[in-house]
């Protein structure tokens, strides 16, 4: 490796945004509008991020469909959904700011579906007390991405008018992978990576880096995530000295496709249930009535008649149990299938054809109709779908300061969206991720802008650059080593079988050993072919990230001896109020991940008082109840 080659491409920016999904784009807009020069880095083409796959909608208590809705109701639903493990301040900011973020998108050209009065329409979703999700049919994520992509183009057009160059202040680096976040003197100094197209290396110098890389689904065998969900940001942050909070909590979405095998895991939106879809087993039994947990007994109907009435009269009936939070529904489906009451292909039936007309199905769920018709040969206006759980979302992520999205312990590093932890506690409600990425994407942009104004530009030393470059070159230098595709498949088997939807201490111990073994072998991955657009080479780096994520998840999961939200222990089936007071913090010493307990910040009295004490008693210890808030 010659120094000329290292010096090939160097850029200096005020803010570097890694990830061009919803959170990254919203952060970039904010940083640019604060007057800064911003680079946006995406692993794929601009506008292809996983956010486009979000279907149902963005939760915001605008009150358009039911005027009783407001931020306090949304806050309560979010905390309940997360089983009170959420960082209260994040849930509060999210509930308060979501409506403004949706209206802002409309000012940028988004076209949401409308109510009769011409306002933004809002639909029902699991765990939300009122219809709350702003939506565009079942392609809401695409609308969000396109709107922000076009907002960025609008900013670039303004820069062209003012400075004569579209890219003078905001530039998109598409198909570029970041392999390392760089620090000098304990502070962020930039990032290093390579163009996927050519394999040539790029150095970015910037005093602030915002990580917005999304999720980790590809660590698992059955997932709704695209190839990009390889936990890059989680791993980059760990290696840069940041912490990951609560990595044991993974959301298995209850309804993924199960047949044919090649589409196994692809998401079936919760809107199908929101619009009236019911779940049945192979005996034709509507089984969800059996699975309403005690904490939700007063909110969910325990008989079909009441559940059916709810669709026309929500004020006088309880909700159908198909709309319980996702963790409950996923576990119920898992139990039905394991008890021999599943479908031929190991799922359950989801049927929307009996309740609503073919015309309305095609209008409200057009991409679901399309997806089943073209990929599975099933016409959902006439027949039931076969569905089962799929790894969908990671609640755990980078530990951040709620107001600024600053990563704890690393000056200049910020994180927003799925890669950040805390907001959703042990389980995320549907619709809360699109609003999360808008609210905290903006806050990360603001946080980074404020930081940059007080911290001058960064420069990276030659030694740091040389080390980063050597790491990229390494897999090419090896011959006859391991194949990254096979190691990835082995890792997915381990996580699927041993760290999945139902866990035990023995299996987790086995998983930790297996992951360590794969990690050892991954140090010997060899790549065939050259640097130019070489997927085997790309996967070698993704694999390294997924291994760190899997290790963090398994080690956090073995330590948490209770079941809560997206973490179910067969050997500790109950929820434990003592455990509610603890987060898990994962950190990396350059060799291995270690996990420790840390006290969860307790909510202040004004938020505590938003709940009935009887409800809080289901989650909290008597001492906490007696205290009545942190102030």
């Amino acid at each position: 490796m010659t120094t000329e080659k290292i010096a090939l491409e160097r850029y200096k920016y005020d803010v570097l945004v890694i990830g061009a999904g919803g959170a990254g784009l919203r952060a970039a807009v904010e940083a640019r509008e604060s007057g800064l020069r911003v680079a946006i880095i995406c692993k794929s083409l601009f506008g292809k991020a996983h956010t486009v796959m979000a279907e149902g909608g963005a939760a915001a208590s605008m009150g358009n469909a039911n005027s009783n809705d407001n931020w306090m109701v949304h806050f309560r639903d979010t905390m309940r959904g997360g089983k009170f493990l959420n960082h209260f301040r994040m849930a509060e900011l999210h509930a308060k700011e979501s409506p403004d973020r949706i209206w802002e998108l409309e000012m940028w050209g988004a076209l949401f579906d409308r109510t009769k009065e011409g306002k933004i329409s809002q639909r029902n979703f699991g765990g939300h007390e009122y219809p709350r999700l702003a939506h565009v049919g079942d392609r809401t994520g695409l609308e969000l991405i396109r709107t922000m992509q076009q907002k960025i183009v609008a900013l670039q057009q303004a820069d062209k008018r003012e400075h004569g160059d579209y890219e003078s202040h905001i530039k998109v680096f598409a198909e570029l992978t970041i392999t390392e976040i760089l620090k000098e003197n304990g502070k962020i100094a930039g990032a290093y990576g390579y163009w996927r197209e050519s394999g040539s290396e790029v150095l970015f110098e910037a005093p602030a880096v915002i990580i917005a890389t999304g999720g980790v689904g590809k660590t698992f065998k059955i997932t709704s995530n695209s190839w990009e969900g390889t936990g890059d940001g989680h791993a980059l942050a760990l290696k840069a000295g940041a912490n990951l909070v609560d990595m044991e909590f993974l959301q298995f979405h209850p309804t993924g496709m199960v047949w044919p095998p090649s589409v196994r895991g692809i998401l079936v939106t919760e809107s199908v249930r929101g619009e009236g879809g019911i779940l049945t087993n192979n005996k034709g039994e509507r089984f969800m009535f059996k699975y309403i947990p005690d904490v939700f007994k007063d909110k969910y109907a325990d008989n079909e008649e009441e559940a059916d009435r709810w669709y026309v009269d929500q004020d006088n009936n309880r909700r159908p149990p198909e709309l319980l939070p996702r963790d409950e529904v996923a576990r119920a489906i898992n139990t039905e299938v394991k008890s021999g009451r599943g479908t031929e292909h190991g799922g359950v039936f989801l049927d929307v054809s009996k309740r609503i007309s073919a015309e309305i199905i095609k209008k409200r769920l057009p991409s679901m109709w399309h997806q089943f018709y073209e990929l599975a040969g099933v016409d959902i206006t006439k027949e039931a779908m076969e569905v089962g759980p799929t790894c969908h979302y990671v609640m755990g992520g980078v530990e951040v300061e709620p107001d600024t999205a600053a990563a704890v312990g690393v000056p200049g590093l910020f994180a927003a969206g799925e890669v950040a932890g805390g907001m959703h506690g042990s389980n995320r409600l549907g619709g809360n991720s699109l609003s999360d990425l808008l609210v905290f994407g903006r806050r990360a942009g603001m946080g980074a802008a404020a930081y940059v104004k007080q911290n001058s530009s960064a420069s990276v030393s030659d030694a740091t650059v040389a080390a980063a470059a050597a790491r990229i070159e390494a897999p090419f230098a090896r011959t006859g080593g391991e194949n990254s595709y096979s190691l990835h498949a082995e890792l997915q088997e381990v996580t699927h079988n041993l760290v999945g939807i139902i866990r035990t201490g023995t299996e987790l111990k086995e998983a930790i050993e297996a992951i360590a073994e794969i990690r050892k072998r991954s140090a010997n991955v060899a790549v065939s072919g050259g640097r130019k657009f070489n997927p085997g080479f790309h996967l070698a780096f993704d694999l390294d990230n997924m291994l760190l994520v899997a290790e963090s998840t398994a080690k956090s999961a073995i330590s948490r001896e209770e079941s809560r939200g997206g973490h179910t222990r067969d050997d500790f089936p109950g929820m434990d109020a003592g455990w509610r007071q603890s987060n898990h913090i994962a950190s990396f010493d350059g060799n291995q991940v270690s996990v420790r307990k840390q006290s969860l910040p307790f909510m202040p009295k004004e938020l505590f008082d938003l709940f009935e004490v009887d409800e809080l008693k289901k989650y909290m210890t008597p001492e906490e109840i007696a205290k009545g808030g942190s102030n």
Partner: protein
Amino acid sequence: MARKLNLRIWRGDATDGGLKDVQVDVNEGEVVLDVIHRVQATQMGDLAVRWNCKAGKCGSCSMEINGKPRLACMTQVASFEEGETITVTPLRAFPVIKDLVTDVSFNYKKAMEIPAYAPPADLKPGEARMEQVDVERSQEFRKCIECFLCQDVCHVVRDHEENKKSFAGPRFFIRIAELDMHPLDILKNRKRTAQEEHGLGMCNITKCCTEVCPEHIKITDNAIIPMKERVVDIKYDPARMFAGLLKREKRS
């Protein structure tokens, strides 16, 4: 259950390349992207292919399958005759980078040239009121997943590199139509600039773009033809021409 499939894949880069024959296992229900991935994992570790969601929602895996522009993730292997060889080649209208991956930056340059959405200056967040029927016209075009298959198939640029400079292509005609039909957009002359600056007039309505659109957007009927008709009305309206004449006379 698995059977063998004969797959012919174009491999190479901008300097040189050709079709390579491979045999690969295929299982029930699989799409072309599945078998390409199997080739990648077992026979050609460095085979370049773009993809993301594998669910027809992101528009990344655009390629030509037996000469037709398609999404590889939405093309069932079972839709071909058993024993038939499936040939996969990169998009023809764009420069090859490597194997099945092409340089589609043309489209991102064109996107920058379309004037952005322009809401009324006095519109406050949360105060917009629009009828569902009015937003639906633009919503049809906003379904676009930017797979660029319409750009690839369009005769105007498919074999005419020289036209690229003055032609934005079907993807951006629906973008202009979407803004033009947006109930709140106030920018005037979108249709006229479509004609004068973005090459709308070069389209000869063969509807190839509509045929390849995986989102079934009626590009020609609902965007291009209505804009062309309105442009004719604006540019060749005798009443307007007369008014324009008067204006010019007044000015002189």
